[in-house]
């Protein structure tokens, strides 16, 4: 009897997972198609923006004397395809992008794809550490705050999170840098590694991961220490936002009938929270965290400057002031790609968290 029941359960589970994986494949295809369309849209918008921004790239990138020589200017324009009609420039650009060629950066004079491969992992690394910090701390503080509603812990957390939200990033950067590096010397100052230190063997470009994968533990430790300050600074705003948001969302969930039902069962409060509140709360937090991750990327411009972090923010900044069209477009595409992947991850997590979505 037991046996029969078990095997029936097994086949049921088997069927379910087959159904899940086919619907999952469909879900992935759909998301990728949408992602591609969004990429095309983004390149178009980025391209259009660079067209209407006043300023002549040639004037910025060629010196005074070169600018006075029409021949040199014409040759420079031809080299970057700037002498062609705009639609043609766009088509040429798109077809090159599809081949992985993002053009030559006008300020670093290297292929943009190489620049991005170098700078992008540095930014992703602090952004990932920052978002993980933010989610763990923001989620825990938010839940604690909601559970102690209007009592002392809630009040303290409210003050903390509001402070986090309202402090300007550049200011926090400077303060943290001054205290923990300059005064206390607990953390190394700038850059991704100690000056003159070895880089880990290249794999992903995320130094901590690369070092750990290759067993270079002392490098991993150094990289981690360098990451700490900029990541914390980058995370302060997000922690504040996620804390406030988690509190609001948990309070809303606590007011739901199904939580009252759970309490009516006489379950201890921790079990009510763990089983009945966390799941729906995570669902709403994840959406916000996905958006916040995009915010972290833009926040990184300031933080990278203070901590001399060789990341995408710095690169974007330099490209922008140099009116470096290939550079700007390259950064836009990468950032758009991050947003699209983030959306994909959020959707994916949704399906993991909500069993109702799994069997659909």
């Amino acid at each position, binding site marked *: 009897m037991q046996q029969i029941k078990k095997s029936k359960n097994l086949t049921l589970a088997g069927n379910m997972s087959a159904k899940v994986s086919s619907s999952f494949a469909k879900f992935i295809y759909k998301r990728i198609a949408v992602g591609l369309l969004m990429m095309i849209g983004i390149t178009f918008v980025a391209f259009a923006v660079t067209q209407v921004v006043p300023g002549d790239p040639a004037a910025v990138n060629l010196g005074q004397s070169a600018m006075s020589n029409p021949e040199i200017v014409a040759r420079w324009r031809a080299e970057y395809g700037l002498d062609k009609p705009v639609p043609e420039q766009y088509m040429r650009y798109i077809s090159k992008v599809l081949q992985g060629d993002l053009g030559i950066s006008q300020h670093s004079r290297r292929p943009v794809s190489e620049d991005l491969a170098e700078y992008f992992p540095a930014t992703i690394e602090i952004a990932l550490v920052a978002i993980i910090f933010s989610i763990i701390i923001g989620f825990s503080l938010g839940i604690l705050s909601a559970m102690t509603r209007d009592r002392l812990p809630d009040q303290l957390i409210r003050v903390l999170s509001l402070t986090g939200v309202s402090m300007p990033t550049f200011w926090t950067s400077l303060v943290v840098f001054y205290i923990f590096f300059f005064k206390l010397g607990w953390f190394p100052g700038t850059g991704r590694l100690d000056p003159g230190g070895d880089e880990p063997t290249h794999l992903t470009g995320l130094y901590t991961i690369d070092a750990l994968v290759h067993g270079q533990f002392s490098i991993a430790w150094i990289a981690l220490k360098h990451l700490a300050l900029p990541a914390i600074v980058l995370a302060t705003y997000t922690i504040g936002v996620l804390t406030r948001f988690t509190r609001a969302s948990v309070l809303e969930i606590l007011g739901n009938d199904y939580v009252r039902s759970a309490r*009516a069962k*006489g379950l201890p409060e921790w079990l009510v929270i763990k089983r009945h509140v966390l799941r729906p709360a995570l669902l709403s937090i994840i959406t916000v965290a996905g958006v916040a991750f995009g915010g972290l990327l833009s926040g990184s411009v300031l933080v990278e400057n203070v901590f001399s972090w060789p990341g995408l923010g710095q690169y974007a900044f330099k490209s922008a002031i140099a009116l470096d069209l290939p550079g700007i477009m390259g950064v836009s595409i990468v950032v758009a790609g991050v947003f699209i992947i983030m959306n994909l991850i959020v959707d994916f997590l949704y399906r993991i968290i909500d069993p109702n979505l799994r069997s659909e």
Partner: protein
Amino acid sequence: MPLLDVENLTVTLATSSGSAQAVRNLSFSLDEGEIIGIAGESGSGKTMTALSLMRLLPHKGFATGSIKFSGKDLLAQTNRAYRDIRGNQIAMIFQDPMTSLHPMIKIETQLTEHIRHHKKISQESAHLKALELLDTVKIPDPASALEAMPKQFSGGMRQRIAIAIALACDPKLLIADEPTTALDVTVQAGILRLLDQLRREKNLAVMVITHDLGVLSSLTDRIMIMYAGSEVESGLTSDLLKNPRHPYTKGLISALPTSSISGKKLLTIEGMPPELGQIPSGCAFHPRCAYAKTSCESQIPTSISISTKHRIFCPVNPLVSS
């Protein structure tokens, strides 16, 4: 000794304009296996009465008075001690089965988590108990229902599942807050029959809350009518329905569709029940009462016995109607 003995229950809630009493000096009792109906217009404090038995009052709300259950004062228990009673000896089902089940947790977990918590039994025996419970409340194919999610069931089926969840630990008292209000009329009858059957088979005491007196007439042994947080009349179901003595009860009964069919003029009660925190002085019903005297504006009515178990809170009306 009655199973449940509520004495001078007063519930104070926090509102935007300060604290206010949603239940005022309520006293009633309930024997084992007895069904009591609590009726009254919206806002009369029925749900707050139920929630104070469950100690699930809204944030910043509190109850005073005494609630004796099997001799223990529920309001005096620590939270921890009370949690052993809640869901175990006293269970509650709520009005809207579409929202009272957790949408993301499968039925088996929702049906067994508190059995496992209160009775400390194995997953295997909890599973068997769950199958038995679904069978009791007449869910077809209990085995696959356990694997399903709430959204796969209709409202009526969900309310049956909610009843199964409430019965899981074999409670002595079941509180049903408007168990049929959110359901179709045809489904309502089934749920009421189920409650009646459970009472007979399990000697379960049931407190049914409703604002529809029609629901109560066939099911309950006794009825208590509430107005603005207080009892206005209570009695055996037949006494109260055939021979209502309080003007408010009379109004409620003559507002029933069945009484208008029987030829009487459909009588509705003029005006609106008072807002929380703006309860009139004296008898709370006096501004709407056709029989009100000046003394009603200041004098708080006390209980007047009509016959065994039949009492009203109105010093004026017994004279008028007799």
